């Protein structure tokens, strides 16, 4: 396997883009990524891409040019972007190609995600009874975690406060105004213990990454950011996932535990070697639980971490430096690539007001979503 580099990064701002389709937002991101790399669409030897709700990614050739390139559609829930990245990584790591592009985009209607039981192989009564609501799952996983490991509501608030504070400096973020801790804690409850500031919202946006072989990256003068690991895992027995009418009493692992372990093995490093991380923060408790699931601290230690600001930009492990899903919103097909975009930007030292100090060299990203899938990438400079 040969090394693979991220030679170009592009993003179409997250949030709402009236009058632009999800695909057009993906095309904007692709143009930005190619310009960043000093390349153009005819240079792309292949593409992988996808969205969850905004159509087939391969129709992007209508926007970008009919060059005849092979373009593979990815539809893999919350791991869509991560899967597109893995496909692209493999295409180059295998030696089959020298340069290609991974694209993720989406455009969701306002309000909570509205899933139908049949899409998840569930009976109709499950949705009729009011269980087909993703926020319930996140709240119940968190409620139990807080009880078992002594996590306080204040810590949930601190995560959201940090997200909005970081996003002030991220021009691709959606919610860019600081919100103080009291406001977050006293806001209306959405699904106990989570208030409205503690949940991300479905949104729109697009991200693209141009990947290249070492030879091509050197030619372009862009051999700085290397992909050390890119993995996806589905759920093991006994994991607790969204939309589960029942689950086994004997509790088991989680897809994130599997993906994280595999990524560290692939990269040949451990959590103590990571300089910054983007962790799936569908809600603020998810970031807290994922700190432990990804190996950065023990269950329950998050109280101390957050009280001491250790996940702040200037902390020992900055987490969600662009405000994460809480501040950027959740366009499902694009979120995983946004994390990698942010990591590549930070490793290149281009984070501006949110730049992690101390010349970071390793960056970790983690997505998680229905129906129990997790993707991890590790970048190194």
């Amino acid at each position: 396997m040969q090394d693979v580099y991220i030679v170009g990064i592009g993003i179409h701002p997250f949030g709402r883009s009236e009058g632009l389709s999800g695909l057009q937002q993906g095309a904007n991101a692709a143009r930005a990524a190619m310009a960043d790399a000093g390349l153009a669409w005819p240079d792309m030897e292949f593409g992988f891409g996808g969205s969850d709700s905004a159509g087939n990614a391969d129709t992007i050739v209508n926007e970008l040019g009919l060059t005849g390139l092979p373009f593979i559609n990815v539809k893999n829930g919350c791991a869509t972007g991560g899967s597109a990245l893995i496909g692209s990584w493999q295409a180059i790591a295998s030696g089959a190609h020298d340069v290609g592009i991974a694209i993720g985009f989406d455009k969701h209607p306002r309000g909570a995600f509205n899933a139908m039981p049949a899409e998840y192989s569930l009976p109709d009564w499950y949705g009729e009874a009011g269980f087909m609501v993703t926020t319930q799952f996140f709240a119940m996983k968190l409620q139990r975690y807080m009880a078992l490991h002594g996590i306080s509501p204040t810590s949930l608030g601190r995560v959201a406060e940090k997200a909005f504070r970081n996003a002030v400096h991220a021009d691709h973020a959606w919610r860019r105004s600081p919100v103080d801790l009291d406001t977050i804690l006293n806001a209306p409850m959405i699904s106990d213990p989570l208030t409205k500031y503690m949940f991300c919202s479905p949104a729109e946006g697009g991200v693209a990454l141009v990947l290249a072989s070492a030879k091509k990256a050197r030619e372009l003068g862009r051999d700085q950011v290397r992909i050390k690991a890119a993995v996806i895992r589905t759920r093991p027995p006994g994991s607790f996932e969204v939309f589960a009418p029942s689950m086994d009493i004997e509790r088991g692992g989680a897809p994130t535990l599997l993906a994280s372990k595999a990524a560290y093995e692939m990269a040949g490093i451990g959590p103590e070697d990571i300089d910054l991380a983007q962790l799936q923060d569908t809600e603020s408790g998810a970031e807290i639980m994922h700190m432990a699931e990804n190996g950065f601290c023990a269950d329950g230690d998050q109280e101390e971490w957050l009280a001491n600001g250790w996940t702040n930009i200037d902390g020992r492990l900055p987490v969600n430096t662009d405000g994460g899903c809480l501040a950027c919103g959740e366009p499902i097909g694009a979120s995983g690539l946004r994390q990698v975009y942010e990591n590549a930007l930070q490793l290149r030292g281009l984070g501006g007001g949110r730049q992690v100090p101390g010349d970071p060299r390793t960056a970790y990203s983690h997505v998680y979503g229905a129906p129990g899938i997790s993707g991890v990438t590790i970048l190194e400079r």
Partner: protein
Amino acid sequence: MGASAIAQGLFRETPEPTLIGGRNRDTGRIVFPCPDDAARWEPIDLPRRGTLWSWTVQRFRPKSPPYIGPEDFTPFAIGYVELPGATIVETQIVGADFDSLTIGMAMKLVTTDFATAANGDAIRLYAFTPATEA
């Protein structure tokens, strides 16, 4: 006005409300509801009492479809209840102050008429409620 179960094969009402789970004929694993695959899954009665495994409150009205509860929405609690020796089931929780819900508390199975059909009949769903007596 009558009442009818939200779906067939989920629960029985007599002599006491009872959830019908499924036991895998090969592995013995117990799930709820019983999958519609008689060759692999045998219907079994689940324990009527258990303990609260986790909970939350649905504070906004779920989108319709698929939700069929009343338009005039009032928040309701949901949770998972661990049925000893069987499985952990997801359920609405009725008859409880939200503030009183605690992981580990004793729960028992009841039914709730949570919605109304077009013909005026109540639509009946299983639910759990705090079990006060031993």
